[in-house]
């Protein structure tokens, strides 16, 4: 009896500390969710559809890439590949988190995988790494990830509802490239990532006439390749 009560207390404490760890980040997340919601409506998607799509995909960047390419009549396969490329970064988090979740049943892992976001990862990884209570860190992660999910979907929905009624002559379509600019720049951390970003950008312009918007994906692959090369030449 006593130990079951203790267990519940530990779980509750972990969960709450996860929620609390994420709260300060919401100061940046909510306004960005609002502007991303506005950006989504610039692709002629209704808030209802956008909301269902966002729950399905749970990635603002992939959603925006896909919606823009659909609007440009890009072939289905190219659209899916381009949008998934944006999300391949989650593979990085998946690798990093796997040792801390391996004791959990698959349904737990599946739930936490769906809820995985840049922000939840950021606040939970240090908790996993320095944890004193073994095998309870997933409750902290759940608290952080759920808080992020609710805040993101809520602010996106509000942004979409507001977005459809904003005047056309405000040029709000420009929030789309600005959104991606805001996501891209913080990934430039050193010479190697800078080379990757710059070469991918330049290659996109050069490959602009490639059929079916395939230039973007090819340019990104060139950028990744050059980034790896620069990193390797630095480490020798």
């Amino acid at each position: 009896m006593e130990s079951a009560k203790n267990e519940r207390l530990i779980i509750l404490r972990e969960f709450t500390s996860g929620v609390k760890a994420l709260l300060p980040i919401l100061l940046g997340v909510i306004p960005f969710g609002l502007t991303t919601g506005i950006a989504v409506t610039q692709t002629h998607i209704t808030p209802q559809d956008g909301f269902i799509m966002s729950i399905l995909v749970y990635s603002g960047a992939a959603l925006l890439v896909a919606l823009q390419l659909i609007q440009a009549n890009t072939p289905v396969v190219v659209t899916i590949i381009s949008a998934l490329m944006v999300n391949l970064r989650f593979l990085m988090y998946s690798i990093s988190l796997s040792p801390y979740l391996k004791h959990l049943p698959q349904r737990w892992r599946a739930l936490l995988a769906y809820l995985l976001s840049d922000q939840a990862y950021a606040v939970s990884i240090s908790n996993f790494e320095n944890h004193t209570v073994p095998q309870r860190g997933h409750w902290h992660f759940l608290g952080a990830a759920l808080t992020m999910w609710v805040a993101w979907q809520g602010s996106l929905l509000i942004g979409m509802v507001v977005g459809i009624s904003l005047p056309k002559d405000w040029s709000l379509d420009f929030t789309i490239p600005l959104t991606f600019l805001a996501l891209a720049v913080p990934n430039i951390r050193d010479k190697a990532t800078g080379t990757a970003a710059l070469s991918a950008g330049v290659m996109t312009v050069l490959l602009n006439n490639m059929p079916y918007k395939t230039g973007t994906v090819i340019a990104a692959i060139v950028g990744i390749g050059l980034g790896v090369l620069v990193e390797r030449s630095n480490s020798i």
Partner: protein
Amino acid sequence: MTTWVIMIALGIGTFLIRYSMIGLTGKVNLPKVVVRAIRFIPASMLSAVVASQMLAYARPGSFTLDIPYFGAAIIAGGVAWKTRNAFLTVLVGMILLWVFRNVLGWLAAG
């Protein structure tokens, strides 16, 4: 209809990316070169996306349309670099776009 097919595929694909290594713990080890390459995906792919989107605002011959968009994007990029704040980046970019467009409008009218 196609839109929903794409969205469902994206939903499944994105989930599988997130789930991959968490679900397969210990059963598969990715080659070192793959792990190394993943680090460069966000910088490369997102920059490529920005470049392709900005191309839509490049309208040769009409400077009054080009300068506000590109000027705003370059300065917003600087804001992103300095502050790493996504919302501030979008906000500054939009305000600059409106300001530049109005200034150029006055210049053209005057």
